[in-house]
């Protein structure tokens, strides 16, 4: 596919459980971003990767959230001990490079519901 792919599209989990959300960026894009969007609000930045390394993780809300991108392509956002407040749409985006007018392409998101 030509776009950013996120799986699963929907995830329902019980409070306290661990979840992993996957993002497949556009091939060749070196920068990858994770955002979280609550109902009625704009996306909020969580973390971004340049290659394999997390260049800025200042948006991660606490240490229950962690993301990896071991080979510089696919990324996984991991949430431990999920809480009901973690329910949101988690968006992934990728861009060819970092800086300047580099368009970020978003996936369709993973809707996480913690019950």
């Amino acid at each position, binding site marked *: 596919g030509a776009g950013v792919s996120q799986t699963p599209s929907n995830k329902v989990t019980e409070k306290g459980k661990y979840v992993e959300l996957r993002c497949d960026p556009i091939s060749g894009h070196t920068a990858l971003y994770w955002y979280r969007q609550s109902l009625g609000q704009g996306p909020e930045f969580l973390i971004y990767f340049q290659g394999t390394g997390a260049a800025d993780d200042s948006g991660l809300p606490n240490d229950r959230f962690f993301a990896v991108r071991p080979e510089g392509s696919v990324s996984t956002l991991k949430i431990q001990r999920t809480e009901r407040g973690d329910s949101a749409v988690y968006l992934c985006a990728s861009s060819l490079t970092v*800086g300047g007018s580099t368009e970020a392409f978003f996936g*369709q998101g993973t809707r996480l519901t913690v019950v």
Partner: protein
Amino acid sequence: GESVGLHLPTLSVQEGDNSIINCAYSNSASDYFIWYKQESGKGPQFIIDIRSNMDKRQGQRVTVLLNKTVKHLSLQIAATQPGDSAVYFCAFKAAGNKLTFGGGTRVLVKP
């Protein structure tokens, strides 16, 4: 899919009319200002951006205006079409490439 922006300000516009969506910002350090369109159940889609040293940029049917004096950004859509119905977000890019999104505006196009 889930509707985005159930409690967002709404702009209702007649098909064929022009739409203007406004956004205020506070961070003067932004390098780029960007407009995104988000349809229900989808991720944001890039529409157009403008660099901080410009005050106007035109695309296909869209124009973005930047007024740095009053820290105001607007998106004008010419001849609005039913496919333009969506939630529109302004976003700001500063050093480090992360985007900060503003509040969204829902646009409803009436046939």
